[in-house]
């Protein structure tokens, strides 16, 4: 493979507190050097990056790639290419596929499909329980051996507190986090959107904030009890933020993520029964968005993850009650982050890159998230000022379910490099 010299960009590497114009040389699939005025090695490709940002590739800890089982809405290959188009060099695939990723063969399948796709890296997250049924622990040891980086029953909460306790304890053996979708199913019940005034007006069943917060509180107590690392998926309420803040003050081993949509939309987006605003956890209120934003700023919430959830267009072209939860997110996350959070004055660009690359790598103990010499050659180059309009027809994902269609965003990926090889544009 030819060495790649990315020249003259603004190199932002929050892992080394680096933010300056420099050259980045990638050779043999690794970061060879970062510095000014680097020479061009023999046979190297040179990319001029003046005015662009060069950063460690983005990492998404929470995506649904639907393979095996629903290859009509996404495959590991299309998901990995959509990821690369969004500036992600690695994504973590949730196990709620059909069949469920609860055994080493299923984990191996994802690893193999990801290698064949040759786009963003795909790390499997394995199930906590066999079949995600919440009864018997999956074989964490074998799952980790086959390549799993975490366990989660995402899509379903781990309802049994005993099983969650055992999962957190047992996972310590292998040094992996247990990621939980925090939801009390009896409170969620038939709910389809946030319980509040909008749901009252639309006549839709609500999901109260307490449905999430009860499970957040329980998970924090169990993390304290076991000293096992709990990772809280897609936090959506100001109450959850308060609980996490207190737990972190006490030194409980917890990390937490928030999605771009929970940072940028409220339940108002459900007006008109817009099924592309139907997600679980639901879009909440302006006060929740404010709390999530300040939690992301102060580190209470560690990172941004997309919860990329592709669905067939037919499935969203339904009555609101019957449409599935979730939206695609890989190809809009960076633009939303720059437009809403950086241009909106919440985060600096290095902070955004920290929340989308450095922190995810740290939380799931993944390679990448840094431009240190010898680190994987996983790099994103983006134009922080480029304006573009979200056109779902242009997505590389197989699915189009996004509430951001037509939105003008600032910040667009120019090139994504994985192991020194350009994976986007393909």
């Amino acid at each position, binding site marked *: 493979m030819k060495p790649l010299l990315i020249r003259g960009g603004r190199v932002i590497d929050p892992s080394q507190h680096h933010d300056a114009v420099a050259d980045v040389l990638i050779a043999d699939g690794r970061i060879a050097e970062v510095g000014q005025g680097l020479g061009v090695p023999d046979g190297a490709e040179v990319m001029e990056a003046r005015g662009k940002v060069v950063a460690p590739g983005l990492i998404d800890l929470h995506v649904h790639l639907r393979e095996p089982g629903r290859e009509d809405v996404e495959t590991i290959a299309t998901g990995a290419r959509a990821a690369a188009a969004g500036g992600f060099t690695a994504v973590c695939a949730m196990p709620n596929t059909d069949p469920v990723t609860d055994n080493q063969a299923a984990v191996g399948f994802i690893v193999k499909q990801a290698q064949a796709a040759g786009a963003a890296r795909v790390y499997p997250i394995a199930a906590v329980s066999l079949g995600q049924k919440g009864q018997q622990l999956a074989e964490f040891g074998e799952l980790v051996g086959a390549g799993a980086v975490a366990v989660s029953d995402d899509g379903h909460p781990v309802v049994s507190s005993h099983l969650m306790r055992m999962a957190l304890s047992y996972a310590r053996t292998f040094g992996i986090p247990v990621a939980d979708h925090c939801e009390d199913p009896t409170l969620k019940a038939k709910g389809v959107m946030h319980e509040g*005034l909008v749901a009252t*007006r639309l*006549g839709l*069943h609500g999901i109260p904030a307490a449905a999430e917060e009860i499970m957040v509180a329980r998970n924090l107590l169990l993390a304290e009890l076991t000293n096992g690392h709990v990772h809280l998926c897609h936090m959506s309420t100001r109450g959850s933020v308060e609980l996490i803040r207190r737990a972190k003050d006490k030194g409980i081993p917890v990390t937490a993520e928030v999605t771009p949509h929970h940072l940028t939309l409220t339940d108002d987006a459900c007006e008109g029964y817009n099924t592309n605003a139907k997600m679980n956890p639901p879009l909440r209120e302006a006060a929740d968005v404010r709390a999530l934003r300040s939690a992301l700023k102060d580190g209470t919430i560690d990172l941004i993850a997309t919860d990329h959830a592709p669905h067939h267009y037919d499935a969203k072209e*339904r*009555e609101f009650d019957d449409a599935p939860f979730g939206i695609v997110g890989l190809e809009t996350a960076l633009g939303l982050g720059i437009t809403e959070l950086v241009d909106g004055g919440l985060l600096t660009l290095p902070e955004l890159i920290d929340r989308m690359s450095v922190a995810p790598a740290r939380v799931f103990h993944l390679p990448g998230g840094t431009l240190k010499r010898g680190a994987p050659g996983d790099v994103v180059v983006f134009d922080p000022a480029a304006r573009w309009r979200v056109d779902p027809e242009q997505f590389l994902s197989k699915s189009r379910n996004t509430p951001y269609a037509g939105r003008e965003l600032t910040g667009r990926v120019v090139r994504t490099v994985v192991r020194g090889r350009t994976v986007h544009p393909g």
Partner: protein
Amino acid sequence: MTERFLGKDLLGLEPLTADQIRFILDTAEPFKEVSERAIKKVPTLRGKTIVNLFFEASTRTRISFEFAEKRLSADTVNVAAAGSSVEKGETLVDTARNLEAMRIDMVVMRHPASGAARFLADRINSNVINAGDGTHEHPTQGLLDLLTLRDQFGRIEGLKVCICGDILHSRVARSNIWGLLKLGAQVAVCGPVSLLPMGIEDLGVTVFRRIEDAIQWADALNVLRLQLERMHGGYIPSLREYNRVFGVTVERLEKAPKDLVILHPGPMNRGVEIDSRVADGPHSMILGQVTNGVAVRMAVLYLLAGGRPEMAEAAKGRAGEVTE
């Protein structure tokens, strides 16, 4: 005759202006008389085809719409979900496209999902009338309740109306709240807090937790049906206790400073939310509501078909005119 007073559809009372609601009520007045004739038929909607699409069981509303349509001389087809392609798994969007392909003029739809009427209306060119969508709205019920109150009091503005019962799951409550507020009434709700929706006060309504307080305050009570499922869903402990705490009884009404007008959208659970002596008593407007239901639905059909309110008297033709 082409200017539309209501737009293409009637999906709810929330999107309507006070003037639009008054237009419908005024238009209903002349249509009341048609139902009193020996030959209850006028040619107003001759040649129009209307599909009554009922995805949920309904007796009163379905029959009321059907009478309204037939008395206006429309051609009607009734489709119930049971035994139709819906039972075979057809989606609502496909049902809509098929109806559209048959070149119908109007659809009257009852559906268990909130927003279903809007969903259909956004996808077909025909007029859509919401005959109840989930727990969202039931606009013609709201309109007939308004008409009944206006008949009784001569006005809506300034009236104190309390809606009693399961507000959380009630489309009738939502349509009544919007209609009454827009026409200047004071609106309250009364029921177990477990059956009141989140943020209901923010709509501009007063909340009474005790039926005795509501009775002291109100000019009229609109008593909602308490569904048995609410007990099984854990919202209330029992129908017996519901009656004891929230039932509208003669004993409670006797303590009111004035005679209250009683409405109920039906079907009633006698002895649960309302006692028989109240339902059958002199201040019950329950059967008047049913009669007004036909007139209001005739008005809505007429207006959506492009009719103008001031032409309604002429449009219905002379009494006794045989049209077919």
